[in-house]
């Protein structure tokens, strides 16, 4: 629970270097913080502010606008069920209700073992595959109630860890621009 560690400071500096203005890296840096700690801590936001050259309040102001950033701990697996229009008319609400029963929590809360947080999601751009859900932003499509149960049981049993990293990590492949391939940097 803290500031960005040394490795993430290196990554942060590389990200900042991708932009003509450092503040543009705010969202990617908040993702780094969330990847490190599972949610975005106050200390990390202060650190991000130092790195991009603004106030911690500005970082919080930005981060708090966006749904994906969490400011308190959530489960290892964030299960988000889409209930928007295309999913709703093909069983999205029922799937969410079933998920509440299976996990034993209400939407928006976390199981007592800290493994799952259940969320209702807006359209995930998988509307033709309704009803659908994401676990840590990895898709499961045309999900039946049985398939949902199986997924939860498998995650509890420690399966899928190769495909689905713990909450906080979104993409595991990072863009990296070798210094000798870089176009000249913009100077303002």
């Amino acid at each position: 629970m803290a500031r960005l560690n040394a490795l993430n400071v290196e990554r942060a500096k590389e990200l900042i270097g991708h932009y003509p203005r450092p503040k543009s890296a705010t969202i990617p840096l908040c993702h780094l913080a969330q990847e490190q700690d599972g949610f975005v801590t106050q200390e990390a936001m202060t650190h991000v502010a130092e790195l991009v050259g603004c106030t911690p309040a500005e970082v919080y102001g930005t981060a708090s606008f966006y749904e994906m950033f969490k400011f308190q701990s959530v489960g290892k697996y964030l299960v988000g069920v889409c209930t928007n229009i295309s999913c709703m008319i093909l069983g999205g609400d029922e799937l969410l209700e079933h998920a509440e029963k299976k996990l034993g929590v209400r939407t928006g809360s976390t199981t007592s073992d800290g493994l799952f947080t259940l969320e209702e999601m807006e359209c995930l751009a998988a509307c033709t595959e309704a009803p659908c859900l994401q676990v840590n932003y990895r898709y499961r499509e045309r999900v039946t109630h049985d398939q949902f149960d199986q997924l939860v049981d498998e995650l509890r049993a420690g399966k899928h860890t190769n495909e689905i990293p713990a909450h906080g990590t979104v993409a595991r492949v990072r863009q990296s621009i070798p210094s000798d391939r870089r176009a000249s940097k913009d100077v303002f």
Partner: protein
Amino acid sequence: MPQTTKMITSRFDQPDSFTLSGYERTGGYRALRKALAMEPAAVIEEVKAATLLGRGGAGFPCGTKWGFLPPTVFPRYLVVNGDESEPGTYKDRLLMELDPHQLIEGVLICSWAIKAKQAFLYCRGEMALAQERLAQALNDAYAAGYIGKNIMGTGWDLDVVLHWGAGAYIVGEETALIESLEGNRGMPRLKPPFFPASKGLYMQPTVVNNVETLANLPWIVNNGASAFTAIGDPKAPGTRMFALSGHVNRPGVYEVDFGTTTFREMFEDPSLGGGIRNGGKVKAFIPGGASAPWFFEEHLDMALHPGPVGAAGSMLGSGAIVVFDETTDMVKAAWRIVKFFAKESCGKCSPCREGTNWLEKIYRRILDGHGRPEDIDLLMDVADNISPGLAWPPRQTTICPLGPSAASPIMSSVRRFRHEYEAYVNRGGGAT
């Protein structure tokens, strides 16, 4: 039988479609070489001649938009809109996941044409796989000399940077996208006075284009504008990817020739929708995403063409068709879309922030069985305050079109299915 040319989805069935070798083997980066041998102005002319209409929602001609850049102001930027989150929409994610190099080649061609200093690829935050595929593709394209310093030995330099969001529908609006890319809350800017073409990212001239729009550029450069306009309708040429969801037998993302396929073909053709489920009938459908007013039976034989669709009071928007069969509860369907807009309102202007949230509350009251007879007109009245006259194209009392979008499902459902609202109100007595 509808015409279906595979222009931008041609590699989707190929197992290595997302790799550099898979892309190069199927003609990839040939268009870039060709474009770099042309003057930038000539590339713009070619794209103008192709009448490539923007695929992000507004359908504005792409070459014309590029022409709005003030000729002497530099640096300029290209921002790629990959924030896809309009309910019903599913195409940009596929283009990013399955053919990232095609998009990158389009980004490079556009950047060359508009003399951009740098390009930013803004991918929606929730799309983990798309971000991974794009990051890998960018790394490979840098290493292969397609991006960065001295591109393909021509002396041209350009950086393409992957940026990603963190969950907010409104960020898809181009000025909110720019705010977000500057590290701010994703709140739209008032336009006019400034449009991105004159003052966009860092208040410099900026082109914002949708993923699908840019994915068309390699094909156009390779085959020429006249080959492009020969496909589809001359006023809406090329192809478009439509996400067909809801109560059809074969929901899916289909690339069809633009402007010629009809809704009926889309829903019924065995290679497309394959008919309404359970042999049922269409009650209503959304032709272009949650923001679009609904269509009904009488619109089935209309072509998926922005001209007639616009004249009939709706839009093709982001290519998102949602089909409702006769079993659908129209009050609930409208409520779900209004709830979405209420939740996603950025809060910058009061008609949208307050209006959408009150609308959602009134809907809940009706659905819960506590609706009053006057609530039906109240819905229309509040919607009218956000979008005066409830007309098409919508007028707005707001900073951006999100607020007026909430009026679409309301006016469509109240005008057509008022009896369903009345049934709720008359039933009363709390939730059933």
